[in-house]
């Protein structure tokens, strides 16, 4: 009885099986073609990317790299209270100046009011969020009035930017004035 209702045509099954196999083969081929070689080497990512990440160019060096050539500044900068300030903060990144050990370009020199702006980035008393006692803060133009100089004076007229107390100390010594207690 059952036999009568059973179809003898299998072509549709064969067709489906055929397309499934083709699809599977295509998927495997596509995977091989499009998936990067090192994908899944260490996890679900391209393993060779770690090597690429390691080889990103180092553009900022350390102060020591600058001192290699700029010897006179080294003596001043390393001895003064600004020794923790990075050269590259004010002058720009090392890589713009030196590439592969060779001179490329002069870094821009800060002048006039640019210098004042740089000083006040750290030393502006008006910004109260800074922790007290950490560094010396000044309010402008009160500081200038206090020191009895004209209010259009620039910071670097009294302070050597690489060691802000260098000239002050020298002047005090010359005048025989007592040295102020160093704050840290």
């Amino acid at each position, binding site marked *: 009885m059952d036999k009568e209702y059973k179809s003898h045509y299998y072509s549709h099954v064969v067709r489906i099986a055929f397309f499934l196999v083709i699809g599977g083969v295509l998927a495997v081929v596509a995977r091989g073609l499009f998936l990067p070689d090192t*994908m899944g080497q*260490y996890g679900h*990512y391209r393993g060779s990317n770690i090597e690429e990440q390691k080889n990103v*160019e180092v553009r900022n060096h350390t102060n020591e790299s600058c001192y290699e050539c700029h010897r006179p500044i080294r003596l001043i900068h390393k001895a003064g209270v600004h020794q923790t300030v990075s050269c590259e903060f004010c002058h720009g990144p090392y890589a713009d100046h030196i590439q592969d050990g060779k001179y490329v370009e002069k870094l821009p020199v800060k002048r006039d009011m640019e210098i004042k702006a740089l000083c006040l980035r750290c030393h*502006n008393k*008006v910004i109260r969020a800074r922790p007290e006692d950490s560094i010396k803060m000044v309010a402008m133009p009160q500081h200038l009035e206090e020191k009895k100089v004209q209010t259009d004076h620039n910071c670097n007229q009294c302070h050597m930017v690489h060691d802000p107390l260098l000239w002050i100390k020298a002047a005090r010594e010359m005048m025989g004035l007592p040295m102020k207690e160093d704050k840290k």
Partner: protein
Amino acid sequence: MIDIKKEIQKDRRAFIKNVLGGTIAGSLLLVIPAGAALDSKLPEQLPGMRGDDSVFTEKKFVFIVDVTACIGCGSCCVADKNEYNVPDGNYRTWVERYIIDDHDEVFVDSPNGGLDGYTEPRTDIPFPVRDTFFVPKLCNMCEKPSCVQVCPVGATYKTEDGFILIDKDRCVGCGYCIQACPYSVRYLNPLTRTADKCTWCYHRVRKGLLPACVNVCPVHARKFGDLNDKTSEVYRLLREPHVISVLKPGMGNKPALHYLGLRREVV
């Protein structure tokens, strides 16, 4: 002089070969970069990293930001922008200014991400200021990173030594990770059209250098080191009693970025 003439007469071809070879070799010396020699000149700020060619290091790096020390000068932001040529308007690291008045109202601002420093005081605070401080922000390098979990193409991944990195070639710029990050440290780089973020200067660390922002911080508010090294400053800070915490601990991401002296108002 006599020798040279003799040499030429003996074998003209060999002589020309030698002279030419010497000239070419000499000129090549001028052209070939002295990159390797330069690298060795750099100080090794992280001991044992230079010469470590293994894929993953055995170290466990942590980053500690001392909120009580930060003066908001923006050195870190400048160094970061220079290191990666970050496009304007995007920030891999930035410094926020928090102001809390005596009505417990919190005001936060970060003009240009702190890149130009803080030049003006805020004048729009209605009540007397109770507390004010700076909070530098950067990638938290989570132990359970949400960004890695959502990436559909495996472009963002976590290395075995704890760095979350982005494969620029693999990223399709869908922006899922940017939405998933609870700390909003990711941005879509308009030049490469891929996701980008702070890497704790992976390339510098692997060469034995401190991250660019840590290296330039004038007040040592940013600290970076190996937690497996029992003599390191970060180990001492995390072991000894301090007010130390992470951002959004409730998110369960377990960041490796810790804050020293963090106030509860900071998000």
